[in-house]
């Protein structure tokens, strides 16, 4: 809540507030409507004034133990009970439990004749009686202005209405007064003059044939409050206001890396996956497999035990589950386990704000770790509106650390206008392209950007197989990346030359071996020759020695014979 008009005086003496129990409204008003004071809710017909007021009283009785009085000038008690029953409010049982008192004030001009002076003390008496009967802390006067149609003397009426507001303040009840919006003024009869504490303006705007309800706090004396127009929602769960504003850029950044669900893609991203809590955009033309990528991401998240919320704008959940089975992903068990929830709605069903509102509530309720929007291109509206809505979705998700996975369908013409100015909001942008060559189309994926990590610069071919999305090893030839049959052909050429090279090598190897064998044989021959010569030489030497010995022996013998000393 940083878009809040804060008044320094508000801090000095905090104003007591009566919580409405309406999702979002208590946040926008920083705690609720002023306690013990009247609040004016104005707006055109059918914009939800009565419902908002009813919710205030019912929630007071059910959630905050503050009984209430509903004084209706338009609908009879039975009608009222029936009308709000469709939103799950059991007014009749609350009445029976004495937690709520309903009083229908019927004002029919044709039945009333005026003669002389009068005042509205009767109304005061009734209100007082009703307040006392249940000990009410909250009061709703649903459309007080009906009195102007029923009674002629507006001077008396104005004086009495002024008195009524003072009286309500004196009773210290938190009151809601509803009023029709008038031309150029907040209310048709200028009641806003008398209620100076808090004024809410409801609005029901149609643009492009889609209606969006909006709420704005016109003034809130003595309190800070959100100043924007906030979309609000009326559906089977009652009223909820969505204080979705462009929050500050204060979200924390996580270093956790989560898998993309596709091993090859993890490798392309330097960190090995996406950072948790970042936003991922996948763009591609029709049939490039954006949803398949999303399904992988979802499956990976569920496998980690994380909860995923899948907003499908173009396909029904059953259709997505069936289609993903064809690539070997069965998401049904994840749905059954409560890890995966699909929310499917046609984009044209409500306006952008309403979609935003719905998403906001679903995200609040389901508290997922990852959210998929498939595809954002289905959201209709002015480019600026779509952009601001997505900005708010992403802000919302980032502030909660939820990983956002968005797909965007590109028209075939190109991607100039396609991203709705989204690219700068995205942390990771994967682009799926159709590579056209040689009369065929092949799918290629590349990482256009991925903040905070080194990533591959390659265009990788991928295939949708029955075992899921498979990234094919890139062939990088002289002509760049080759895909499809060109890649296969090139691979065959490569294989051929490899075989030839291998054969060449083998032959060379054999040659060398042969040469080596020949050489070795020669060496052996030479060695044998040498050995033979050596043996010959030895023999001669031995013979010579023996001759020498014999000569010496003969000499000794001769000396002995001559009688000389032995030498």
């Amino acid at each position, binding site marked *: 809540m940083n878009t809040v008009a804060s008044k320094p005086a508000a801090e000095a003496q905090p104003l007591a507030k009566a919580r409405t129990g309406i999702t979002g409204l208590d946040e926008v008003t920083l705690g609720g409507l002023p306690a013990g004071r009247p609040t004016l809710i104005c707006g055109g017909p059918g914009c939800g004034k009565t419902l908002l007021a009813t919710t205030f009283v019912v929630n007071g009785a059910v959630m905050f133990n503050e009984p209430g009085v509903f004084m209706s000038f338009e609908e009879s008690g039975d009608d009222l009970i029936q009308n709000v029953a469709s939103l799950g409010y059991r007014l009749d049982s609350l009445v029976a439990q004495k937690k709520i008192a309903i009083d229908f004030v019927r004002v029919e001009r044709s*039945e009333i004749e005026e003669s002389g*002076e009068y005042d509205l003390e*009767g*109304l005061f008496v009734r209100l007082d009686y009703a307040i006392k009967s249940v000990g009410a802390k909250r009061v709703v006067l649903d459309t007080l202005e009906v009195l102007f149609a029923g009674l002629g003397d507006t001077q008396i009426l104005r004086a009495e209405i002024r008195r009524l507001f003072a009286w309500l303040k004196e009773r210290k009840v938190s009151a809601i007064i509803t009023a029709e919006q008038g031309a150029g003024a907040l209310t048709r009869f200028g009641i806003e003059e008398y209620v100076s504490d808090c004024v809410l303006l409801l609005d029901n705007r149609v643009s492009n044939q889609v209606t969006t309800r909006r709420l704005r706090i016109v003034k809130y004396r003595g309190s800070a409050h959100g100043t924007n127009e906030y979309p609000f929602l009326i559906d089977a769960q009652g009223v909820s206001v969505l204080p979705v504003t462009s929050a500050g850029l204060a979200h924390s950044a996580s270093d956790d890396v989560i898998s993309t669900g596709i091993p090859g893609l993890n490798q392309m991203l330097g960190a090995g996956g996406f950072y948790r809590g970042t936003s991922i955009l996948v763009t591609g033309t029709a049939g490039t497999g954006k949803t398949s990528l999303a399904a992988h991401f979802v499956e990976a998240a569920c496998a980690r035990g994380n909860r995923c919320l899948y907003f499908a704008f173009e396909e029904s959940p059953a259709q997505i589950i069936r289609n993903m089975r064809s690539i070997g992903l069965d998401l049904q068990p994840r749905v059954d386990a409560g890890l995966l929830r699909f929310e499917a709605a046609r984009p044209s069903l409500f306006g952008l704000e309403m979609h935003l509102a719905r998403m906001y509530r679903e995200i609040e309720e389901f508290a997922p770790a990852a959210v998929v929007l498939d595809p954002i291109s289905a959201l209709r509206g002015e480019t600026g509106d779509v952009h601001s809505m997505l900005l708010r979705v992403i802000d919302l998700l980032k502030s909660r650390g939820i990983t956002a996975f968005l797909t965007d369908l590109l028209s075939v013409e190109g991607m100039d206008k396609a991203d709705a100015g989204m690219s700068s909001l995205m942390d990771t942008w994967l682009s799926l392209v159709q590579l056209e060559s040689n009369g065929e189309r092949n799918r290629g994926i590349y990482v256009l950007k991925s903040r905070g990590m080194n990533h591959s610069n390659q265009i990788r071919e991928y295939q949708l197989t029955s075992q899921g999305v498979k990234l094919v090893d890139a062939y990088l030839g002289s002509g760049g990346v080759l895909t499809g049959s060109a890649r296969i052909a090139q691979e065959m050429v490569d294989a051929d030359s490899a075989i030839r090279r291998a054969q060449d090598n083998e032959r060379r190897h054999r040659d060398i071996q042969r040469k080596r064998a020949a050489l070795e044989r020669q060496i052996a021959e030479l060695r044998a020759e040498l050995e033979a010569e050596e043996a010959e030489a030895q023999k001669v030497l031995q013979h010579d020695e023996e001759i020498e010995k014999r000569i010496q022996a003969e000499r000794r013998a001769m000396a002995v014979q001559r009688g000389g000393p032995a030498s």
Partner: protein
Amino acid sequence: MNQLKNTAMEEPLLAGGHYNLRLYVAGQTPKSITALANLKNICEEHLVGRYQIEVIDLLEHPQLAAGDQILAVPTLVRRLPTPLKRIIGNLSNMERVLVGLDLRPVAAP
């Protein structure tokens, strides 16, 4: 009750029939005192002997206010003859009271 209603329905507007009137007030304010005085005058003048006035002080019986759809005070309610009629104010404008009670047709000039 039924009998009274029937006679009231059959007889012409300006003719007799029993008048059951209720005056709702909130305390003894000047307005309520004036209203009661005015009412008595009118009845004595136009409905001698066939009217009945019941004064209800809402401060004493606040629970009765919702039943008769009382909003302004003083309110004069003509319970009989039917249909139910309501006249608010201190009844100072006698013409309007007579028209309101169907004692005089809407002024034709």
